[in-house]
């Protein structure tokens, strides 16, 4: 039988958080944990198919182009640029959170703006890479790249690449949108009136998670 609770009882109204954080930040952590399992499942599925194949395309042969330098063999070059863009945008986000701790609106604005620039730069790089691969004939269900041993590869390579980098890119896109909303709210002085910049911390957690996932996408698709 359901426990009778007096109307209007505030469960979280009177006490202390046992985790010493506010409710929204704790829930952001749990959301990110569940998202980590989603990405983990994608990457492990990719690994399973790769382990079940006798050979697999060599990433250094597939990802060897750089915008403006077509025709040259530059393995790992472009993805290194993308990785550094994301690391730098993560750093600017930490600095925005840091300024938020000191209630410095101007500082939050400056670093958040740079984070947005970094996010858009990353998305632009990914758009170029997808377009380039599409021109080479790769798409869902189509894989022009041969296996490392010269045999014809199945389409799993292209399917997993576009699905996982696409899912990650969608996270980056939503992160940029969330950052822009937080930036507008900072400009309007919402957090200043509220007396704390905890929203910037929560937005920052999501943004760092996007960077964290890229560490593993970079590892699984480009390095090994």
């Amino acid at each position, binding site marked *: 039988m359901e426990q009778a609770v007096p109307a209007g009882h505030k469960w979280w109204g009177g006490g*202390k958080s046992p985790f010493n954080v506010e409710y929204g930040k704790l829930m952001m952590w749990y959301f990110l944990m569940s998202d980590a399992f989603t990405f983990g499942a994608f990457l492990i599925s990719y690994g399973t198919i790769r382990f079940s194949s006798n050979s697999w395309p060599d990433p250094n042969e597939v990802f060897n182009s750089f915008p403006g330098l077509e025709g040259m063999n530059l393995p790992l070059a472009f993805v290194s640029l993308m990785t550094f863009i994301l690391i730098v945008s993560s750093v600017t986000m930490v600095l925005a959170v840091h300024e938020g701790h*000191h209630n410095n609106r101007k500082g939050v604005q400056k670093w958040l703006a740079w984070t947005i620039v970094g996010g858009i730069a990353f998305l632009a790089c990914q758009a170029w890479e997808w377009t380039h691969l599409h021109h080479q004939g790769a798409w869902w269900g189509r894989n022009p790249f041969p296996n490392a041993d010269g045999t014809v590869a199945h389409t799993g390579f292209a399917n997993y690449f576009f699905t996982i980098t696409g899912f990650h890119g969608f996270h980056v896109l939503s992160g940029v949108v969330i950052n822009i909303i937080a930036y507008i709210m900072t400009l309007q002085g919402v957090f200043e009136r509220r007396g704390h910049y905890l929203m910037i911390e929560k937005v920052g957690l999501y943004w760092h998670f996007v960077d964290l996932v890229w560490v593993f996408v970079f590892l699984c698709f480009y390095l090994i």
Partner: protein
Amino acid sequence: MEQHNSLSEVSFHHEPAQDSVKRIIRTTVILSVITIIELALGFWIYEIHKGANPSAGLVLGIKGVIIILSLAKAFYIVSIFMHLGDEIRNLIMTIVVPLLLFVWFIIAFLADGNSWKNLRNEYKPKDAVKQEQTPHGGGH
């Protein structure tokens, strides 16, 4: 640092020193250096593959080192940039302990993929006539 006044559920506030810009810069340098080492190892694998006799064991070893370096990067991002290392122990544990599921998840699925490959490679149909009767050759 009087920003948390309106949040009564938060009992203890972070020390400002924990947040210093110096620590952020140090972590940035660590992450960049690890990434550069990973890229160097990636190029090393590329050179090995181009060579006459690629050693599978050496490539596997380099890949193992790259995976460990990536886990180190993940640790620095979560612990320093996401400030999980500054939270109280109970919060850290509710996030980290469920992630241990990945240990089983990775081992079980990669082993299963590998076993599937081996079974397929070793598969020899006993009844050749029956195999010919299926229009597309049955098993791959």
